């Protein structure tokens, strides 16, 4: 059975159930990259130009790690999606990813590229032509795509119940028990899942928060919420950032969180724009305590812990005053 390698980085955190089911239905074995560790980051940093953001470096490190073990390497190119008649783009790094990888690795015919571009056709067409490169008939590709869509729906149900995208990487995802402890203040954690949920590069952020006595809340944005966000006047035209902002808005509306943590990677191009928008939203609404954290490969856990401790102190003091 031919093996397809999928990096445990970037948009895999968004779409893994869909991708896995699609290729498994077509009779391939899907190999997910191992958990990010020091070595993978080091490899990525060595390969990539210094100014790229950390998640892309991790992606490159993952690819190099998978390179020897699989027959094909899966490279998604998520160009744009149409929501409510408007086009929403991926960030330039996501658009250029396959070309970036091709420029860095010697052998290029083992890369399997998936193009999602609603200017050219629907998601399905992208998958069908991707399968076409593996010499698979259109009809069976379409069937596999339908099944994959069903699987994605199921996965989003699991996410709605409080699971994190990392949980879907396991064969049998467990629904995470939500801690409904009223006494502990809850803190919203906003950011790309490929940063927030990657334990290594986010330096165990969620666990550290838990240890400090607060409950981290990672919002899950449903399809409808994303659509209503897209319908807003002057919405951002970045697809994945739209999701981030919709998540932040959802948490702010619910009014159950006591603080907001904005998690970005350094040199992420979309971060300053997203940060600016969320900051304005917070100032206009609720004046919640907010902390923006920028991660790169030099971030240290002690520095993170110090900043989080003082932030948690601030949040708890605010909660007591009320």
């Amino acid at each position: 059975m031919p093996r397809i390698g999928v990096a445990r980085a970037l948009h895999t955190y968004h779409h893994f159930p869909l991708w896995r089911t699609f290729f498994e239905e077509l009779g391939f074995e899907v190999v997910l990259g191992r958990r990010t560790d020091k070595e993978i980051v080091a490899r990525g940093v060595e390969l990539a130009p210094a100014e790229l953001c950390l998640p892309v470096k991790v992606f490159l490190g993952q690819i190099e790690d998978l390179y020897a073990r699989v027959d094909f390497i899966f490279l998604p190119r998520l160009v744009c999606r149409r929501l409510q008649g408007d086009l929403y783009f991926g960030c330039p790094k996501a658009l250029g990813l396959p070309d970036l990888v091709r420029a860095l690795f010697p052998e290029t015919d083992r890369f399997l590229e998936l193009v999602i571009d609603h200017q050219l056709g629907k998601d399905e067409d992208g998958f069908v032509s991707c399968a076409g490169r593996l010499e698979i008939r259109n009809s069976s590709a379409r069937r596999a795509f339908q099944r994959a869509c069903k699987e994605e729906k199921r996965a989003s149900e699991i996410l709605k119940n409080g699971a994190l995208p990392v949980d879907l990487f396991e064969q049998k995802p467990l629904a995470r028990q939500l801690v409904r402890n009223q006494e502990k203040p809850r803190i919203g954690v906003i950011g790309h899942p490929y940063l927030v949920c990657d334990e290594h590069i986010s330096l165990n952020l969620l666990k550290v928060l838990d240890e400090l006595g607060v409950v981290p809340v990672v919002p899950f944005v449903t399809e409808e919420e994303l659509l209503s966000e897209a319908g807003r006047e002057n919405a951002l035209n970045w697809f994945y950032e739209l999701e981030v902002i919709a998540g932040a808005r959802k948490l702010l509306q619910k009014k159950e969180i006591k603080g907001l943590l904005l998690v970005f990677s350094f040199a992420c191009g979309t971060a300053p724009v997203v940060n600016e928008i969320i900051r304005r939203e917070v100032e206009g609404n609720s004046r919640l305590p907010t902390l923006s954290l920028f991660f790169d490969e030099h971030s240290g856990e002690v520095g993170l812990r110090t900043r989080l401790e003082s932030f948690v102190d601030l949040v708890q003091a605010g909660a007591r005053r009320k």
Partner: protein
Amino acid sequence: MRVAFPYMGDIRLILEPILKELGAEVIVPPEPNRETVALGAKLAPETMCLPFKVTLGNIVRALGLGADTLVYVSGSWSCRFGYYGRVQADIARDLGYRFQMLELRRDRMLEIVKQVIGLSQGRFDRALLRTARAFRLGWFKADTLEKTYCLARRTMPYANEPSACRQVVRDILKEVERTDSVKGLVRLRQSLSQRFVAVPKNGRIDCLRVKLVGESYCTIEPFVNFDIINRLGAMGVLVDPFLTGPRWIGFHGFRLKKGEVLSVQRAAKEYWRYPVGGEDANSLGHLILAARAGYDGVIHIHPFACMPGTVVQPALFKASQNYNIPLLSISVDEHTAETGFMTRVEAFVSLLERRRRIGKRFKTEV
């Protein structure tokens, strides 16, 4: 209506007469300098790219001078450039300025048309006539400027005194600004080559040729790239930018040397299949064409953390290796020091000189 727009090289000399001809008043902010950048960097989000900070400083200063309308190219695409208008307007409103935004984007064209008609007291025929006249004037100004720059670039390395050549350019720019008739511009254009021929020469017969590629603002704005074209020109290196101000605002878009756009795209295709903004595919294509045309080297300038600029870097380096043409890629931000920048450029130039001296050992394999 008092319109303001940010600096970008000398596009002011083209946009100002167009807007004036349309009936608007133009507010010109002070030329970008350290103060502009400091102001922009203070107000902008920290990790935003340099062009954002410089243009923000520009427009805030223009608003301080009393501008009440801002013109932006805006839209929905992948690069941050599409959001400049929205974010900058928010920041300026926070500072307490009140103004009107004109976004040049596909779905808002009607608004612009209405504004233009409004400037002609609501008379459509008059507006149409004025627009035609404005763009005709703009076209001739752009054409004169483009020709001036082209001649200046080609004269500079051979001039005995580079400052004499610079003086000629300064004089011509002043004349372009003063001349408000097409007839005058045509006459000026005819005199251009004579003026540059008259510059005393140093007797050099050959010089290094370098192609300048990169993000458009960094290529065009001399304040950001430390006037690299003239500085290298004075050192005896001919620098050809792939993009100039007049071309950027579209005035040479429709008459770029025949097939240039297409051949650039075709050349870039091998390494870069989806243009993502920030002139990435164009940089790559021009690098390859420059290698084929026998240029000695390529300099790539992009703002620090520019998304398209960084993601295209590996492809640029791979192409430079495959086509055997040296490449220097520099990123600039508000902290870039002129000395550090020029040291790197000078080192690159001496590498090119050496390469040319012993060049026969390096065969170009294309």
